[in-house]
C-alpha cells in the first residue's frame, strides 16, 4: 500500500519543480553571490529573482523587506530580540499562550532576563479576547508577537486587526506566519504588520530556509553580525540553492492558493465529517469557522494519541498527535491545555494536515482506517466498556497519580 502522508503541518514534501530548480546550485552554479566574477553574479541574479517571488506571495511593498535566514525559529527569535534591542527602555513582550515553542521558549528565557511577558489566553475554541489584548497595550511594550495560524488546530488569529491596534499605540507587531503562508492569502502592504516569519519546509521548499519580512523603516537589530549579506541584516553566505528553491515554492504557492482553499479544503472537510460520522465520542478542536483549509484536529476521547499513531502508521498513514507524548516532551499539548480541553480528550487528539498532494481516495482510505483503530484502543481503555464510555467515566476510573 502506498503510504498516505497527512502531516503537512509538521513538514511538507519538496515539490519536484523546487528540487529541479535547486540542483544547478549544487553543481555548476556554486558561486558566492557576493563575488564580482561571473560565477557569483549569476547566483546573485537568482537570489534576486527568488526574493521577488517571496515578495509577491507576501504582497510586500519592496523586495528589500525580505531577509533570508535559516528557519522559522530563527525568524521568530530575530524579530523579538531585535525589537527588544532597538527599544531598550521597553521590556514588555505580548504574545499568546498557544504560540509555537520557537516563541514560547524564547519568552520563558526572556523572563529570566528581566523582561515582562504577557501571554494572551484563549477560550475553548482557541480564540483570543481582543479586549484583554487592548488593555495590555501601552508604551512599555517592545513588541507584540501573535501567530497567524496555529500549527496544532489551524485556528487563525485576527493578526491584521491586532497589528492595527498595536500600531495605533506605536508598538511594533510581529506574526509567526509559518503555517499561514501559502494557505492564506496575504497582502502585507495593506496591513500594519511590521515583521513576519515564514519557513520553507512548510510550503514544499526544503528544510533549513526561512524568511523574516521586515517592513521598511522598522527599527531593526540583526541577530547575526558579520558580512554584508541581506544588507547587513543577516550575515552569513547565502544558502543559494535553498533560497532559489523557496522562491520557486512561493511561486507555486501563489498558483495553488485557490486550490488550497477549495480542493484541499473540501478533502479536509470530507475527512473530518467521515471520521466524526463513524466514531462516537470524538470532536474537532479549535475554531472551525476560522481556520486553515488543510488542518483538522480531532479529539478521540478515552484513548491516547500515540497508540492511534502507531496503529495508523502500521497501515501506512502518517498524522500527528496532540498529546506531545510523541515529540520528546511528555506534557500534553500546551495548545489544547490552554483551550481547557479535558485531558482524556487532549491525550487522544490527532492532527491531520493535508496538502495539494493528497487525493480523495486517500481521504476515503483514512476514513475507513480510523474507526477500527479507535475501537481497538478503547477496548484497552479503563474508561470504556463495550461500545461506550462508562457512565461518569472520570469517576469510575480515578487512579492515584504520582
Amino acid at each position, binding site marked *: 500500500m502506498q503510504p498516505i502522508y497527512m502531516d503537512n503541518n509538521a513538514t511538507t514534501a519538496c515539490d519536484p519543480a523546487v528540487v529541479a530548480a535547486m540542483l544547478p546550485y549544487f553543481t555548476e552554479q556554486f558561486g558566492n553571490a557576493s563575488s564580482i566574477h561571473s560565477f557569483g553574479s549569476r547566483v546573485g541574479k537568482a537570489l534576486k529573482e527568488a526574493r521577488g517571488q517571496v515578495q509577491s506571495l507576501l504582497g510586500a511593498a519592496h523586495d528589500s523587506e525580505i531577509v533570508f535566514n535559516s528557519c522559522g525559529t530563527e525568524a521568530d527569535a530575530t524579530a523579538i530580540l531585535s525589537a527588544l534591542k532597538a527599544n531598550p527602555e521597553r521590556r514588555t513582550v505580548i504574545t499568546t499562550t498557544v504560540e509555537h515553542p520557537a516563541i514560547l521558549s524564547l519568552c520563558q528565557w526572556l523572563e529570566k532576563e528581566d523582561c515582562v511577558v504577557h501571554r494572551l489566553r484563549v477560550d475553548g475554541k482557541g480564540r483570543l479576547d481582543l479586549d484583554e489584548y487592548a488593555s495590555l497595550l501601552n508604551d512599555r511594550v517592545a513588541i507584540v508577537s501573535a501567530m497567524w495560524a496555529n500549527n496544532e488546530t489551524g485556528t487563525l488569529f485576527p493578526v491584521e486587526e491586532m497589528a492595527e491596534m498595536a500600531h495605533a499605540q506605536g508598538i511594533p507587531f510581529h506574526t509567526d506566519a509559518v503555517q499561514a503562508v501559502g494557505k492564506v492569502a496575504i497582502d502585507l502592504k495593506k496591513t500594519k504588520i511590521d515583521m513576519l516569519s515564514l519557513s520553507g519546509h512548510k510550503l514544499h521548499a526544503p528544510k533549513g530556509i526561512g524568511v523574516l519580512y521586515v517592513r521598511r523603516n522598522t527599527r531593526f537589530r540583526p541577530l547575526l553580525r558579520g558580512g554584508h549579506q541581506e544588507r547587513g541584516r543577516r550575515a552569513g553566505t547565502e544558502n543559494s540553492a535553498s533560497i532559489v528553491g523557496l522562491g520557486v515554492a512561493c511561486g507555486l504557492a501563489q498558483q495553488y492558493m485557490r486550490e488550497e482553499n477549495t480542493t484541499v479544503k473540501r478533502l479536509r472537510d470530507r475527512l473530518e465529517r467521515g471520521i466524526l460520522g463513524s466514531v462516537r465520542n470524538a470532536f474537532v478542536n479549535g475554531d472551525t469557522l476560522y481556520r486553515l483549509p488543510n488542518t483538522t484536529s480531532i479529539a478521540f476521547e478515552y484513548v491516547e494519541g500515540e497508540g492511534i499513531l502507531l496503529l495508523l502508521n502500521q497501515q501506512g498513514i502518517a498524522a500527528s498527535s496532540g498529546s506531545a507524548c510523541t515529540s520528546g516532551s511528555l506534557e500534553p499539548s500546551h495548545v489544547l491545555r490552554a483551550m481547557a480541553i479535558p485531558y482524556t480528550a487532549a491525550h487522544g487528539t490527532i492532527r491531520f494536515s493535508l496538502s495539494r498532494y493528497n487525493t480523495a481516495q486517500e481521504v476515503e482510505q483514512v476514513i475507513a482506517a480510523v474507526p477500527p483503530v479507535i475501537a481497538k484502543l478503547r477496548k484497552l481503555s479503563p474508561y470504556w466498556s463495550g461500545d461506550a464510555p462508562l457512565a461518569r467515566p472520570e469517576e469510575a476510573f480515578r487512579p492515584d*497519580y*504520582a
Partner: protein
Amino acid sequence: MWDYSDKVREHFFNPRNSGPLDGANGTGDFGSIKCGDALRLMLRVNPETEVIDDARFQTFGCGSAIASSSALTEIIKGKTLDEALRVSNQDIADYLDGLPPEKMHCSVMGREALQAAVADYRGESWKDDHEEGELICKCFAIDTVMIEDTVRANSLRTIEEVANYTKAGGGCSACHEKIEDILIAVNGRLYAREVKPTRAPVASSGTPDMPKLTNYQRIRRIEETLEEIRPLLQREHGDVTLVEIDGRNIYVELSGACQGCAMQAATLGGVQQKLSETLGELVQVLPIAPLVRA
C-alpha cells in the same frame, strides 16, 4: 517517533491479558501525572496459595504504557504475591528489551499499580511515595524532583556537586542550563563554579594534547575513575567493579541496587562517558552479569 524495541512494538500491537478480569480480588489503579497515562491492574489471587492465577489490565496511555502493562501481567502470572512484589520496574523494562529514558516512567507506573493491587487484595491501605518531575538529564534519566531534593538535602551549590551526588549533568552536559536553573531556584543565586586545572577535552584518538598512556597508566586511570564514581552508586546501594579490560572494551560488574535498577543502562552510559573523557579515547563499557541474580 520513539525508538521502541521490537518487543515493545510487539506487546503494543498484540497486548496480552487486556480487558476486565472476572472474579478479580485485587485491583490497583495508578497513573503518572507527568504524562497523564494511567492503568488498572486486576489480579485473581488464589487465597490458599497466594499465587496470582490470572492478571489483566486496562490502560489509558501511550504505546510503551500499554506494552509495559502487557509485560507486567505476563511476568507476574503464576508468581506468589511476595514474588511478584520483588519485580522491579527495571524487570519490566528488561522484559521489553528496554524503554527510552523518557518512557521509563511507564514501567514505574506498572510497578506502582502492582503494589496498589496487592495492597487492595490484602485489605491494606497503600500510599505511594514516588514523585515524578520533568526529566532533566537524559543521559542518566534524572528528573527535577530528584535534583531539587538532593540539592536541598546536601546544600549543593554547583553543577559539579549535582553531578557527584545525582549523576545528572555528568554525561553530555546538554542539561547544564536546566540544572543551573534548579540551583538558582533552590539557592536563590548561582555560586561560581570551582575552577579546576583543565583536563584535556574529549579526544578523538590521537589528539596531540593528550599524551599516550602506557598500559599501566591506562589501567590505573580506569581504576581511579571507577573509584570516583563508586561513592555515587553506593549512595544508592549499588556498586561497580572492574572485571576485565580488553582493548576498547571495559567489562564491569554492577551489583546491588544498580544491577537491575531503573538506571542501569544510563549508569553504564555515564560510566562510559566519564572513562572516555579521562582516557581521551572512545571506550565501551559492558556489563558482566553477576554470578547470582537476585
